[in-house]
């Protein structure tokens, strides 16, 4: 057999190997695409779980802020009183609380609107504006003594590598 092959006068053309090479090439491409889609799927699941965890963290932070008591009144009272008095006295307490409570978040935003959806306060912190990904993590409605309500919404920002655990610039 060995003799027959090596002593054959007939040449072996590359065209005989083309179909096999094409099959191998196509299979390799499909395998890579499949692995990529699997990776995307896993990443989607992980991101989803991570986001769900942040929703819980956001809710805990917001409720923690509203129920914290200072000088005999909770912060929900403070925000409501600030709204009624048309001053920004709640601003400092919001900044102090959330910056200490959320040190690992790239940036956060607290928006307060009245029942007519008119903005009362909008505080951004850290790299919120610069981050490409921003999303709402918690929302709470509190009553005001005059019968109105205030909607307090907390947003997180993500996607700014290098900012995590680094000093946050106060805006």
């Amino acid at each position: 057999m060995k003799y027959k092959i090596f002593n054959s006068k007939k040449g072996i053309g590359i065209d005989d190997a083309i179909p096999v090479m094409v099959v191998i090439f196509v299979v390799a491409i499909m395998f890579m695409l499949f692995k990529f889609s699997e990776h995307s799927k896993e990443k989607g699941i992980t991101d989803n779980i991570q986001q769900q965890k942040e929703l819980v963290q956001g809710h805990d932070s917001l409720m923690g802020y509203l129920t914290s008591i200072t000088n005999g009144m909770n912060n929900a009272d403070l925000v409501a009183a600030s709204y009624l008095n048309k001053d920004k006295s709640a601003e400092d307490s919001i900044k102090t609380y959330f910056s200490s409570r959320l040190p690992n978040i790239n940036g956060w935003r607290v928006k307060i609107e009245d029942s007519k959806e008119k903005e009362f306060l909008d505080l951004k912190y850290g790299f919120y504006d610069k981050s490409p990904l921003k999303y709402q993590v918690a929302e709470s409605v509190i009553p005001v003594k005059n019968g109105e309500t205030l909607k307090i919404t907390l947003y997180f920002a993500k996607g700014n590598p290098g900012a995590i655990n680094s000093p946050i610039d106060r805006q």
Partner: protein
Amino acid sequence: MFKNKKAIGLEWYMLIVAIFMGVIWFYIAMQNAKTIPNYVGEHQFSILKTANSAENALFYIDQSAKYSLEQTIYNLVSNGGVFEIEANNDDKLVHPCGTYNGAYVWFQIAKDADKTLVTDCINEDVLEANLEYEFNTKLNEHILEYPSNILLDNYKYTINDGIEITGMAANPITFNIGNEKIKTTTITAKSSEVNPIISSDKDLVEFSKTVTAKTPQGDVDMSGICPRGVSCVLTKDAYDMLVKAQKRAKDHGTSLQITSAYRSIENQIAIWSGDTTSHYAQRYPDENERRKWVCYPYGSDVGQRCPHLTGNAVDIRLNGRAMTTSDWKLLEKIMLEAGWVRYANEPWHFECCNTQRYARAQELGVQVLV
């Protein structure tokens, strides 16, 4: 072809088949990647989110209660502790000693010939009743502003020393996990006297947020049929008949508004026992008298006797109307046209489907009966 001496290789055909199969495989894989069904922890997070909503609502109620008490005390003090409204009954009362310079009189000293009459015009019971009434009114006002539906008049108040009010919820605030279709299971009886009355897996429909109902005859506007603070739950059959009635109401240039629909056994017991702000037990201490107004929620036949427990009964009115005699007549016409049966003693109470009263009405061929 068969005379051709040159052999035909299968490799090209196999290549085509392989590529075709590969494309199908990849397509299926990509389809699966688009939807992530039941990822780990999905249901747990769903429950957590619902718990968060509940926490928000409870916090809102707590804050509202605090402000309501402040406002109530302010109003009471401004009025000298008097409201000329009897608690839990909107009948206007007149303060026995009247007013002096616009202020209610607390003590009245009158001279009658040689006698001096001293009348104490304020008593603690009236003060407490007024405090509770005004507090509940203020709390309802706050609750109505909350984005989700929280039941009104749902608390039994106890006034403690130092003007501290404790409110016990008569009915739980419900937050649905998932869709709006409720599957009830057999209700656990709270008391040995109570029998579970709702068969398991009864289909109930929650329609408090339904804006439009789709029917074969077209869309029906359902906005406003369920006012804030009312629990709007019915069986599917009853809901379909309600949609029909709403369509008839629209044809008559008006619309309907529910005041009460399905009640759980706990809810019925709370109403009977006076644990809601309707205070039936206090207003009618005699049980026989109270049975005229509230269905007695105990006994093995309670499920048949109390139609609201079946989810096939509604207390209803015309939206935005004062409900004069002609309004009640129009309401009856609309509801009867849609196939409902009216309880003869209450112009607002209608039943359908498989209640005892409805079955009897069908047998007798009438639409109004006791």
